[in-house]
Each structure stands twice: as structure tokens, then as C-alpha cells.
């Protein structure tokens, strides 16, 4: 999640505007899918790797963030070895890994606030058409990122309470109280948004 993956830093990539980074990610995605040449894909992979590993994370931290995705890509490549020529599998592998590295670099250098401002900017045209309110989209995104950890924490608390009372831990008996408590909190959160002058909800 963006909230937990941002890395404080002053690298040139940190200083780059969010819009430029997202645009670069889009262009890179299209470019990498437009070519099968290993002579292009291999340098792209190395370049993205250099970028990601130069952002101030230790090698261990950097690997921990992308390890699962890399593992998934490797499994995918291994399966494809039975179906496709080796060169094609290598291209697939390099392409996906380069994209993951670049996307991870964008995530590590973009604060959630900056990302939300950009989302607000991107949906502004829809606001002009009267389809939505840009600030609402930004707020919704912020609320998801803000409260998902709280919902996990509450899930754990309900599980603990079940365990403490010697009750069997079944997803269904936990999800019921979790939904009720979350909805109850939603009322207070809506009141808080009102109180902070966002607008009458």
C-alpha cells in the first residue's frame, strides 16, 4: 500500500513531479509491450533495477517489497517454458520484472498526498462534465488507505476476543461483528468529515 511503501529521500526521482512519473510508467508499459527484442528489454530491466535499488532502501528491504511479485512472475515464466520458446519467455520475464521495478520506484518516491492530488487533477474533466466531484474521488481513495489498517486491527481484536472466550474462530462469526462495528464507525467518520467542513454529507 502507498501509505507504508513511501521512502523518505531527496533523490532526483523523489523530486520528479508525480505526473511525470506516472506518465513515464505509462509510456514504459506501452514501449515494453511493443517490443520482443531482448537487446532492448534487458537494458530496460537493468535500468529499472538500478533506479529502484538506488532510492535509499537496503537491498533486503528492497527485495522484501517486490519479492512476492517476482516469485509470481518466475512461476508464470516457468509454466510458460512448457508452452513457448525460451526467447519469448525471457522477454516476458524481463518485461514484467522491469515494470514491477519501475512501479515500485514510483510508489517508493510518491507520498499518498501527492498521489491523491494527482488523482484529483486527473478526474477534474469529469467534474466539468458534471459526472462527479473530483475532491470526492480523492477523499474516497484517502479513506480507503486510511481505514484499511484500522479494519484489519479490528478483525484481529475480534479474533482475540473469540479466543479469550474460548469460542471457535470461524470467518463467519468474525465478519458479522466486524461489519456492524465498521458501519457504526462509518457514521462517526461521516460526522467528522462534516465537522471538518468538507461539505454536508
Amino acid at each position, binding site marked *: 500500500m*502507498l*501509505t*507504508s511503501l*513511501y521512502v*523518505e529521500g531527496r533523490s532526483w526521482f523523489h523530486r520528479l513531479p508525480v505526473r511525470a512519473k506516472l506518465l513515464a510508467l505509462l509510456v514504459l508499459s506501452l514501449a515494453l509491450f511493443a517490443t520482443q527484442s531482448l537487446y532492448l528489454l534487458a537494458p530496460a530491466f537493468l535500468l529499472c533495477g538500478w533506479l529502484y535499488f538506488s532510492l535509499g532502501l537496503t537491498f533486503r528491504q528492497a527485495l522484501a517489497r517486490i519479492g512476492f511479485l517476482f516469485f509470481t512472475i518466475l512461476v508464470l515464466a516457468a509454466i510458460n517454458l512448457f508452452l513457448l520458446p525460451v526467447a519469448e519467455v525471457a522477454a516476458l520475464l524481463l518485461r514484467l520484472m522491469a515494470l514491477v521495478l519501475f512501479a515500485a520506484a514510483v510508489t517508493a518516491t510518491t*507520498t*499518498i*498526498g501527492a498521489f*491523491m492530488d494527482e488523482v484529483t487533477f486527473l478526474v477534474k474533466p469529469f467534474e466539468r462534465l458534471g459526472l462527479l466531484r473530483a*475532491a470526492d474521488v480523492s*477523499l474516497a481513495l*484517502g*479513506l480507503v*488507505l*486510511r481505514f484499511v*489498517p*484500522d479494519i484489519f*486491527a479490528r478483525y484481529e481484536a475480534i479474533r482475540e476476543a473469540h479466543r479469550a472466550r474460548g469460542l471457535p474462530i470461524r470467518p463467519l462469526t468474525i465478519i458479522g461483528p466486524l461489519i456492524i462495528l465498521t458501519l457504526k*464507525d462509518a457514521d*462517526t*467518520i461521516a*460526522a*467528522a*468529515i*462534516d*465537522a*471538518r*467542513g*468538507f*461539505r*454536508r454529507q
Partner: protein
Amino acid sequence: MDIRFTDCSVSFGERVALHPLTLALDERRIGIIGLNGSGKTTFARLINGLVKPSKGRVTVNGLDTVKDDRAVLAEAGFIFQNPQHQLIMPIVSDDIAFGLKNRGLPAQEIAARTEAALTRFGVTHLARRRVHELSGGETQLVAMASVVVTGPKILILDEPTNQLDLRNRRMVANTIDALDEDTVVITHDLELVEGVERLLLFHEGRLLADGPPAETIKRYHEVAGC
């Protein structure tokens, strides 16, 4: 502050949460106490328009909480019983900036005012921290900073020392004492309201006592039977 309740009552369906009340609050430091369910939070929420009167009228510094609701929200900031609920953005500095962004202020002013609020409440070191990782005392200070940053003249604090340990309780109490804004504090923590200018006691939806802290607290003990 200039808060006026004119024959104001609140009902939720059949249940009367607050019986008709006519009252003027002019002091800078007001405290509200009462047993659970006595109507004190309803009373406080009437002040910034989060609850609308079923009958009668409430005005805050001359503004009607129904007709001028947006202006009243800007005039009276509210800090909730569980401040975690009012921190809406995932990162502390983003949350403090949230209210300013909604007012459409320029980016430079938002940054300067956010920085000033962080400094004022001594939470500059928390600026990049994730909101859900803050301790109770830190959460309360950040909640205050996020409300005060928009410049309300009155602050309503609903049980601000609830669930805080002794050190955090003292830190929050000292911060409230030092606030330039007028305050209305709802609390079960009697030590917190010992120094207020005027203390109100609510019981079963009625204003039971209204006066200096010592007298009102004595009456509260009688009501609570201890």
C-alpha cells in the same frame, strides 16, 4: 464566545435527548459533565451544528446553526471522543492539510499553515507518520492541530483525556489550557474542568446545575450517588 440556546430541544423519534433549554454561554472556558447518556454530547454537537435542534434555535457568535451551518462549522471546531475517527487522511501532515485544501487555499499557504500547526502542537516529528500508528496522546494532539489549523474561534472537545495514561493526560490537559481559542470541554475527568470559568451538569437530558466548578462538581457527586 457567544453561544445562545433559545428554547432548544432535541428528540430522536420518541426519545428526548435534550429537554427544552434556554441558555447563553459567554465565558472563554466552559466545562460539561454528566453521567453516560445524560445529553452532554448532544448538547455539544448542537454547538457546531452536527446535531440540529428539533425545536428552538442555537446561535454561535451570531450565526444560526441551521441557516448558516457551513459558517458555524468554520467558527466552531469539534474534536471527537475517539480522535482516530476524525483523522481522515493516512499521513499526519496530509490530514492537517485536509481542511485547508477543502477551502481551496493556495499550496504555499497550505504548506506554511500545516507547518505552523505541527510546530504549535509540538508534533513536527510526526509529520510523515501514519495516522493509525500514533499513540493515544499523539492522536489527540494531531486531532487538535488538524482542527485548529483552519482557524476556528471555538473548540469543542469531547472527552479529550479519555483512555489516556497519566503522562499523556497531563500533556493534553496542558495543551488545552494553553489554547488561544475558547473551549467547551465535555468530560468525565473532573480534574480537567476544575479550572474552567463555568461548569454545566447534565442529567437525563436536562441541565441540572450551572455555575462555578466546585459547586457543580459537588452536585454531580450527589447525582452519581458517590
